[in-house]
């Protein structure tokens, strides 16, 4: 399943946004324009759909309450609303629309409740709330149907898709020093702390095949790499990644992940995520700590990985190098522009002059990223 359109109302920086999404989508914008908040809309829906202790109440509470979610530019309308349009793959694709509205009681216990929830499949309405039972028992509205297996039977496919949404902002230090930290792994592991466990849990055959593909892809970045292996420490039983490097010694040298560079770890995490699962993958600034030449190959790499695994990928980035690839189409880039009335989201294909420049052979990185630079040039001249 892929998300073909997203509409947000009063969601964080966004007062009102309605955009189409492509299979590969890049999000650019100035600092603090709402790139992460845009990605968070999808994580929010995932948090609602999670069967292991998700739900509306928790998803809202984890974000500091509804007042933190609501757009500051929204003065009169207090409702937060998210709409997703999705289509399934296959010969006769289904069109789904999921919509949820959330409000807070103005007085009393100020409880957060579902003010609207609906699902349509190919135009037929499968569910619409509040319904009669809801009006008899308004406590029911503290939960969405999306989070309840008894209620989401007719749209289970949709719930499963949202559950599978993955967010990755791999922090190499957390992975490298996981023994020392022994810390709490955040739910859904956004920072890639338990990447090794995830690799360990993959069936042997799949695991081997994926690591082989990753090593293959890594070769262009790390020419000395011969093989990537997965092993268990014989003493502690902890999972480890090992790389065999060609070396001046007759036998290749071995390194474990604690000796990998930040860049190598990030690349492995990124590539593993691309080969795992078939739900939406959200990548936050994947260019960090990577060499510009490698970042320049990332857009085609994502595209190539999508050929075999039909995974939709949404990437937030600041990198000119990432968007310098000539194959990135204008509709694959969304430009976020903040204003007093909230942040707007525009596909480059709808900006006439940028589109014309790109049609003449300029890349998105060259023509659109300068727009995200701070207007106040003296910003750093102190």
């Amino acid at each position, binding site marked *: 399943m892929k998300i073909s359109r997203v509409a947000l109302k009063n969601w964080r920086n966004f007062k009102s946004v309605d955009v189409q999404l492509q299979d590969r989508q890049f999000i650019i914008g100035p600092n603090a324009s709402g790139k992460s908040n845009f990605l968070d809309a999808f994580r929010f829906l995932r948090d609602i759909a999670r069967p292991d202790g998700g739900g509306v109440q928790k998803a809202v509470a984890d974000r500091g309450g509804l007042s933190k979610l609501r757009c500051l530019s929204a003065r009169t309308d207090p409702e937060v609303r998210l709409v997703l349009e999705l289509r399934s793959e296959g010969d006769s694709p289904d069109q789904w629309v999921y919509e949820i509205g959330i409000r807070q009681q103005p007085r009393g216990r100020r409880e957060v409740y579902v003010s609207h929830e609906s699902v349509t499949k190919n135009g037929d309405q499968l569910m619409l709330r509040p319904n009669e039972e809801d009006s008899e028992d308004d406590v029911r509205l503290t939960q969405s149907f999306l989070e309840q297996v008894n209620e989401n039977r007719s749209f289970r496919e949709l719930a499963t898709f949202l559950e599978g949404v993955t967010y990755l902002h791999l922090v190499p230090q957390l992975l490298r020093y996981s023994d020392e930290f022994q810390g709490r792994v955040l739910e859904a592991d956004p920072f890639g702390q338990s990447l090794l466990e995830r690799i360990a849990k993959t069936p042997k055959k799949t695991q081997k095949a994926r690591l082989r593909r990753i090593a293959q892809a890594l070769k262009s970045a790390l020419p000395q790499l011969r093989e990537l292996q997965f092993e268990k420490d014989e003493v502690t039983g902890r999972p480890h990644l090992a790389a065999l490097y060609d070396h001046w010694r007759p036998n290749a040298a071995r390194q474990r992940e604690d000796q990998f560079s930040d860049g190598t770890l990030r690349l492995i995490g990124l590539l593993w995520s691309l080969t795992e699962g078939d739900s939406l993958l959200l990548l936050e600034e994947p260019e960090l700590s990577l060499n510009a030449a490698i970042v320049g190959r990332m857009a085609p790499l994502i595209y190539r990985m999508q050929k075999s695994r039909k995974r939709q990928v949404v990437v937030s980035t600041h990198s000119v190098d990432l968007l310098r690839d000539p194959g990135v189409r204008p509709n694959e880039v969304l430009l976020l522009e903040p204003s007093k009335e909230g942040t707007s989201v525009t596909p480059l294909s709808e900006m006439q*002059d940028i589109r014309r420049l790109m049609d*003449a052979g300029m890349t998105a990185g060259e023509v659109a990223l300068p727009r995200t630079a701070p207007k106040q*040039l*003296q910003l750093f001249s102190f």
Partner: protein
Amino acid sequence: MPKHFTILTEDLPSELVAIKLLKFVDPEVEVVNAIGRQGEGYVRSRLPNLNRAANQHLKVVALLDTDSLRACPEDLIADALGAPRNPFLSVRCPVTEIESWIMADAEALATFLQIREAAISDRPDEFEDAKIELRRLANSSPSVRIRSDFAGDLGVARPGPLYNPMLEEFLLNQWRPGHAERRSPSLARAIPALRALVQA
């Protein structure tokens, strides 16, 4: 009808000069795309693309330093474009560098560098290396900050550590195209050409 412009320049000071010139020519001009900041080679490599893209609604101004007194701007431009010039694209060449145009507002520069106006040449277009001349002037300033942070060691081609940010501040707040055009013939030619492009 908004007057939208795209500019192509080699670095941030040149970008500011281009924006200032366009605003001077017509305050209603809005520079919506500022492309470049990646050196002179980049400007040359992208000129053919912009030459193709330019039209009535997407006017383009590019700045390309001649870098040498012997270079002929017209050959330089024709060479970089590799095709007939699009009427909605204008390439202007500071002779020999953007610093020539900057020095041409001698009054403002004298205030900025805290030097006598008379010390500044009234023919800035005639320096083979305008940047070194600007740094030489800065080095005669009584201000330690200007000498060390802006001029830097004159023995090497690398300017002081705050050369670009200080130059940008000067361009934003003090530099005046209307004064500069009196001393720099290449700038004096550029201004009417830009005016014609705005009205085209």
